[in-house]
């Protein structure tokens, strides 16, 4: 009887779970995207007849090809430049013996704590025609136009340095995994250092480099914040523009946006298929049983050594200057920022907290004051509401993604066939560019006829928040699944058996035994997802709703010119402070994930013991002092 009851409750729970996942997969992945796909072929011509090939003809005849071509050009160039810089910085910090490598590494890793729109606006602050470094650069290179930092050049420059984080993570790990004995063996057989690098070291890095190349290519293809902010006509900005356009202004904009997003999806699917096929072939596996730690190679040629050092420090300056300048200017007054000159005698927190009146001279020669016009990040209503909005949306989405994936992983680990199907359905968004998902949501749910969401228009007013959360959740599912599933698979099966044997129910076993084990990974995934979504720009820009105005959109608006009479006043100051704030948030999250979160129970107990000892020492000292008195 008891068994039957338990069986029933488990069965009902499983059935409910499967219904939920089917709802998620069909309702929020397949149907909206399918709608986008079919919308291309259901366009009506001037006569009101359906013309399935109208958009394709338009594409082939008009300038739409330019956007695709521009995206492809950007992707190809980025593959070259990002790999060049990425490989360089990894070799310079991990392989060659360069003085100050530890500091160099910190500089090269700065893109891990600020990226996307924060990084682009930071670069703009430095290099745009009114940027703080532009006069210096124009003085140093007279042939350089002060408008050099716009369009294609600016996008390539910015993304080249912004997209090397993956190299610092994955290529660095790969190079550190090389068995130093293989290098010694090659040297012993007479190979010079260059030959060792090219014939022994680099071949072992090829699989990682291949993956990085594909990832960079996709990043270039799907670039959004850089092209939008710096003005480059590539696919994503065009999709966003078309999505906001109407057929009164131009021919079937929605269908054209759909076609572009599908083209992007096709590229992504092909590239990921190639990547997966390549990864399946296997990697170079080290056969050594006792791996020797890689030792840094001295560049013996003195000229080459000097050149390498100069190159390393030039790159370091390129990485660090925006960070340092932005931090410095975030503590400068409004007038110092306006003049783009550091005022060493006047430091302030006004870009972070509080407000100041703005006094200006009118055309009639009269001074006027706008009370509280100069405001800091945490005092400016628009910025603060953007921060709150992003915090709410990203925290909710990150939490939901983790909960969904944890439940899914528990199911996948116990059911082979249906578990595999569930796994693939959750990985499905990996194949789709985020813009396709967001664009599809924007179009598909902008109606009151989607029955499975209660015939609610989810793009209307505050409902858009729900839509953004769903988009965030869906796009974060594949990453979350890959990470949390790995944690699940590391759990010893015998633990569950042991708990069961000791009388623990499945729910108790999950909560008391399994969850604490995977919790560090789940929290890490939550933090990383939150970090990525908190400053996310691409998706919220695609939704482009004033009801879902995220922090990144607010930062983007800060790049607009500051009006003399109060419009966008002190935006540059808040932009600097925002970038610093983002760097602090990201830094704390990375520290929590990789520092505190990575500690196991023994380390936590050890830390607790040390804390206890410290307090005992302090109190006994105080007691001693009191007694002495």
């Amino acid at each position, binding site marked *: 009887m008891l068994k039957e009851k338990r069986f029933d409750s488990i069965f009902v729970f499983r059935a409910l779970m499967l219904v939920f996942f089917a709802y998620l997969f069909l309702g929020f992945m397949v149907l909206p995207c399918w709608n986008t796909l079919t919308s291309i072929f259901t366009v009506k011509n001037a006569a009101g007849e359906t013309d399935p090939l109208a958009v394709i003809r338009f594409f082939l005849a008009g300038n739409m090809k330019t956007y695709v071509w521009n995206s492809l050009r950007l992707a190809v160039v980025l593959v070259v430049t990002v790999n060049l810089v990425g490989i360089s910085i990894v070799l310079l910090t991990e392989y060659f013996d360069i003085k100050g490598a530890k500091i160099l590494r910190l500089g090269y890793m700065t893109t891990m704590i600020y990226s996307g729109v924060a990084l682009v606006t930071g670069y703009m602050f430095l290099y745009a025609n009114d940027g703080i470094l532009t006069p210096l650069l124009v003085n140093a290179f007279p042939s350089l136009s002060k408008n050099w930092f716009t369009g294609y050049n600016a996008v390539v420059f910015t993304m080249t340095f912004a997209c090397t984080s993956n190299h610092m993570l994955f290529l660095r790990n790969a190079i550190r995994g090389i068995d130093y004995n293989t290098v010694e063996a090659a040297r012993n057989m007479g190979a010079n250092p260059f030959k060792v690098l090219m014939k022994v070291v680099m071949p072992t890095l090829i699989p990682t480099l291949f993956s990085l190349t594909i990832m960079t290519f996709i990043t270039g293809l799907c670039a959004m914040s850089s092209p939008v902010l710096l003005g480059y006509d590539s696919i994503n900005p065009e999709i966003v523009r078309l999505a906001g356009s109407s057929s009164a202004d131009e021919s079937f904009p929605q269908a054209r946006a759909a076609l572009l997003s599908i083209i992007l999806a096709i590229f992504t699917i092909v590239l990921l298929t190639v990547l997966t096929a390549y990864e399946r072939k296997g990697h170079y596996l080290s056969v050594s049983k006792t791996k020797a730690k890689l030792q840094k190679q001295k560049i013996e040629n003195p000229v080459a050594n000097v050149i390498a050092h100069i190159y390393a420090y030039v790159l370091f300056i390129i990485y660090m200057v925006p960070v340092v300048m932005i931090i410095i200017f975030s503590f400068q007054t409004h007038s110092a920022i306006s003049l783009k000159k550091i005022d060493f005698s006047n430091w302030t927190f006004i870009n972070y907290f509080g407000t100041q009146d703005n006094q200006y001279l009118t055309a009639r020669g009269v001074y006027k004051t706008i009370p509280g016009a100069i405001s800091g990040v945490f005092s400016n209503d628009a910025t603060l509401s953007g921060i709150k909005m992003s915090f709410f949306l990203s925290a909710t989405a990150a939490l939901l993604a983790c909960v969904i994936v944890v439940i899914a992983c528990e199911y996948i680990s116990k059911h082979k066939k249906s578990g595999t199907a569930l796994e693939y359905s959750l990985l499905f968004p990996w194949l789709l560019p985020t813009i396709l998902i967001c664009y599809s949501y924007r179009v598909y749910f902008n109606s009151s006829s989607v029955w499975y969401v209660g015939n609610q228009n989810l793009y209307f007013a505050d409902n858009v928040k729900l839509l953004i959360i769903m988009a965030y959740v869906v796009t974060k599912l594949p990453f979350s699944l890959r990470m949390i599933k790995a944690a699940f698979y590391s759990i010893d099966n015998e633990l569950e058996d042991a708990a069961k044997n000791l009388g*623990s129910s499945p729910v108790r076993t999950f909560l008391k035994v399994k969850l604490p084990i995977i919790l560090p990974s789940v929290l890490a995934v939550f933090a990383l997802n939150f970090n990525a979504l908190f400053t996310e720009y691409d998706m919220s820009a695609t939704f482009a709703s004033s009801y879902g105005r995220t922090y990144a959109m607010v930062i983007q608006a800060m790049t607009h010119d500051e009006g003399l009479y109060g419009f966008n006043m002190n935006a540059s100051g808040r932009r600097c402070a925002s970038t610093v704030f983002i760097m602090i948030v990201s830094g704390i999250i990375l520290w929590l994930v990789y520092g505190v979160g990575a500690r196991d129970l023994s380390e936590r107990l050890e830390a607790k013991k040390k804390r206890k000892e410290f307090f005992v020492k302090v109190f006994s000292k105080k007691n001693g002092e009191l007694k002495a008195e």
Partner: protein
Amino acid sequence: MITLDNIVVKFDDFTALHDININVKEGEFFTFLGPSGCGKTTTLRTITGFINPASGKVYMKDKDITNIPIEKRNIGIVFQSYALFPTMTVYDNIAFGLKIKKLSKDEIDNKVRDIARKVDLSDEQLEKAVSQLSGGQQQRVAIARALVTNPSVICLDEPLSNLDAKLRVQLRNELKKMQKDFGITSIYVTHDQEEALTLSDRIAVFNNGYVEQIGTPNEIYNHSATEFVCNFIGDINKLEDGIVEALNEHGAGLDPDMHHYIRLERLHVNKAQDEDHFVFDARVVSSEYYGLYIKYTVGAFGQTLRVIEKNDGRVPFETGETVKISFSPANIMSYSSKEA
């Protein structure tokens, strides 16, 4: 105490256990021994309730427990990996089962500290994370966790297999002592014959889902019931046709159609022997010096034989030296060739 009655276990079309019949007596240290995939762990998991047999019954103290849920069988388990919960302290690991039984805090504390003392775990160790303990200490935690709920039987699934050789021997002795101290019926799974012989009161030797023999270590070793058991337990020489013929010429009366074996230590090198001993010349092919004993490989009648001689301080025989090998035909174990 525990009786397996015609247990059959199937995984889809594959039959993992064929009509297993075992009776474990109260207080006995009973071992399931066999190579990987022979069904010993499957049998253990059937007893503990993780596997439901396709047919047959499991009895504990004459009570049918075949369909009783795992947690209600009152069987403690020590897993191969120990399965200690890594996110809990040693104390919490041991207290886990007691908390589920909803015992009072004081009761839990008393029981945990009591069992910890018995298995030699200090109060300080109780507050540690399991990863801070050595392999031996972890084993003691696993045993304490299994025993604290007062089970009728304790099942140990290859608990020494992950340890290095030296520690294995040390813990083996501790395990035996603990079992005797607690006097609890123990079922032990291992593929290590030495472990089985040293620890067990009785052993069941498994092969391909069948029980080949149940007996005391001495019965299993000296009177192996099947050719598999005699090959699996200890080291042994198979006597080839040449030597069998020679033996028969001396009146041994061995059936040439059967397979004949003799253990290494039953052969002797250059030693005065009883009259009934069969003696022949052999050439030393190689020798391995182990300190306590010397292992010779000798050639005779077109085959090689391995011999173990106790190290009595004499100079070992040289390779190529001719020696006299002797043994008693009574020590030969013979099996029908059909068995193989």
